[in-house]
């Protein structure tokens, strides 16, 4: 009797569905090819119709909004008269908030550059591709690193009095502690959800929280001299 082949080959072809795929499954792996029957629709007209419809609905919403609310227009630019506070556009107010705590070379140059670089490298980082729960492997080592990073970050923020950024950091850190102490088979859906999250997810979620909080604080809670004000008491 001859040795069994090192692999089995399969082929599936159906013009109306996914393109032909040839699969080679080596003996020692138990690969499962899922979603063979993926239903497809034609871009013209079905997808294009939906896209146009979505854009039209958006256009209607924007037109209605533009009829109701006027774009701001203040007095003519006057270099001799500085408004207090002088604010950047809202999407930069998170950075301007950081500018309040750190020198411009940190908040204005280093942080944005690091942000862009980290966004660009996300897909090239191996740890994101694995996409397995952060604490499911090397649990001890990773927990140590996590605690060190979290405490270090909190001490850093408090040291520079960036209290605004503490709350999002705390929330994410607590969620990570919950994730570390949950099992993938936990009966609680929320725990199962957290435990499956990879490192990239945690970093991005932390970034999202900080972005929202810093931008909101810069937009609504900062008054003359960048002092803390409550928007409903102006």
């Amino acid at each position, binding site marked *: 009797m001859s040795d069994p082949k090192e692999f089995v080959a399969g082929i599936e072809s159906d013009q109306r569905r996914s393109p032909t795929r040839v699969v080679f499954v080596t003996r020692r792996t138990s690969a499962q090819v899922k979603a063979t029957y993926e239903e497809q629709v034609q871009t013209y007209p079905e997808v294009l119709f939906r896209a146009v419809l979505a854009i039209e609905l*958006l256009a209607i919403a924007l037109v209605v909004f533009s009829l109701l609310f006027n774009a701001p227009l203040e007095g*003519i630019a006057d270099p001799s008269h500085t408004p207090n506070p002088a604010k950047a556009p809202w999407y930069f107010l998170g950075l301007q908030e950081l500018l309040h705590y750190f020198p411009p070379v940190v908040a204005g140059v280093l942080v944005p550059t690091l942000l862009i670089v980290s966004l660009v490298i996300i897909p090239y980082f191996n740890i994101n591709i694995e996409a397995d729960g952060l604490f499911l492997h090397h649990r001890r080592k990773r927990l140590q690193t996590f605690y060190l990073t979290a405490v270090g970050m909190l001490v850093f923020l408090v040291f520079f009095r960036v209290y605004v950024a503490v709350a999002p950091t705390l929330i994410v850190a607590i969620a990570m502690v919950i994730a570390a102490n949950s099992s993938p088979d936990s009966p609680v859906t929320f725990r199962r959800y957290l435990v499956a999250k990879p490192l990239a997810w945690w970093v991005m979620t932390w970034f999202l929280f900080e972005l929202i909080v810093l931008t909101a604080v810069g937009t609504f809670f900062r008054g003359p001299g960048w002092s803390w004000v409550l928007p409903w008491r102006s």
Partner: protein
Amino acid sequence: MPGKTDKLIEQVEHSRVWRSIFRSGTGTSTLHRALAIQQNVFLHLFSNKVRKRMLSVSSTWYLGTLTFGTFLILIVTGVLLMLYYHPSVPQAYADMKDLQFVVSSGLFLRNLHRWSAQAMVFLVFAHMFKVFYRGAYRAPREFNWVIGVMLLLITLLLSYTGYLLPWDQLAYWAITVGSNISSAVPLVGSKIHFLLLGGNQVNANALLRFYVLHCVILPLTALLFVAVHFWRIRKDGGLYVQQSEPKKLAAPDDAVLAKEAK
């Protein structure tokens, strides 16, 4: 008389001129519909077919489509606004006042441009986070993610350069605050600051530079990147579907089963 109109449309669609422009013809067959995409220079950026699952609102929230929608609105309103705008001091501000009080629907035009711009910035961010949480940046789509990050930057620059154009207090000081940050770059900070503003402070030169960037350079760059962004969706295997098992596997066709039984 619907019968007559239908006949007229049919005649036009079968005319030599129409067929010379739209080569695919007007049939409803799969082939005709595929050709309608493939033989159109703009539509051929997209794939012929899309996985049905990706059409549901929850899978993408249509954020990329909507971002492109705001971009289109901004091009149309922006070009119309250019007809009434002079990038000079103090005429720029006077043009704002004209748009507000003299030009028919001028105020509405500026409102729509302004709010669409804000919506675009918001949608670009939302699109980025949605793509991230779907895991749609993973191989082979890494480079399309990078192009997306470039488009995010271009969007922010577009919005930022547009912010100065009304030449009011809000514009002037927002740009002053923002451009001062560029001075903080080590070694070449003051040079970058000078290059950006065409001077040491925000003045008429800065307005002209921002105008050129806002109306010519950045939109054209954005358009180029958007085209590549769309095209790469097709090249990288269509809209990304999460690797998890689909909710419901369609049963194999009878024909397939019959073939296997043989």
